[in-house]
């Protein structure tokens, strides 16, 4: 399953998303979701088997890009986001 999160990492939406994660799920952080890069302690980063990507454009626009890079977080382009939606039949947006 693919989860799309557009709210900050400690928002209700983020907490609810975390409660529904299965192993092998994928998360794309878009819009304010990229703020997760500022919080290495975020529970999402500790979830094993779940791949988490940040939309690079939203990280750059919010001035978070170099921080994300410094933390070694995986950044993806919108085209890669689309590829993830091709690969996952179930897609849930958390907002």
């Amino acid at each position, binding site marked *: 399953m693919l989860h*799309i999160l*557009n709210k900050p990492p400690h928002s209700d939406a983020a907490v609810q998303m975390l409660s529904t994660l299965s192993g092998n799920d994928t998360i794309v952080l*878009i*819009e*304010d979701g990229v703020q997760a890069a500022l919080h290495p302690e975020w529970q999402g980063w500790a979830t094993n088997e779940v791949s988490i990507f940040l939309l690079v*454009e939203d990280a750059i626009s919010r001035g978070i890009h170099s921080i994300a890079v410094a933390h070694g977080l995986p950044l993806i382009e*919108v*085209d890669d*986001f*689309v590829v993830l*939606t*091709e690969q996952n*039949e179930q*897609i*849930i*947006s958390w*907002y």
Partner: protein
Amino acid sequence: MEYGLLVMGAPYRSAAPHSALRFAQSVLNKGHHIKGVFFYQEGVHNASQLMTPPQDELNIREAWVELHRQYGVSLDVCIAAALRRGVMSESEAKRHGQVNFNLESPFELTGLGQLLELQQRCDRLITFA
């Protein structure tokens, strides 16, 4: 692949319309098809014909219209959500005794059943809210 989009954020209030348009462009560039965009909740404001942002800002309604013109993407607006927010077509305005209207083709007012059908007929339905 067939895509459908559900947009529930209002222009200039939410990033949802921008994110949805950006996503749509990439989907189409990859050769996929977008069957339709369904506007619900605050998303119905995307259809407002009277939207007049300053010249240095994107007119979001026009961006949707362009998507329709280029790729034939249908633009469906939930009628119940739209009417209660003052977004309506000429015929709905007449029916409800309103003098003005602000929704025109290619946007179409439709029922919620259209959203359910869109989800069932598409390979992927992506929500932007």
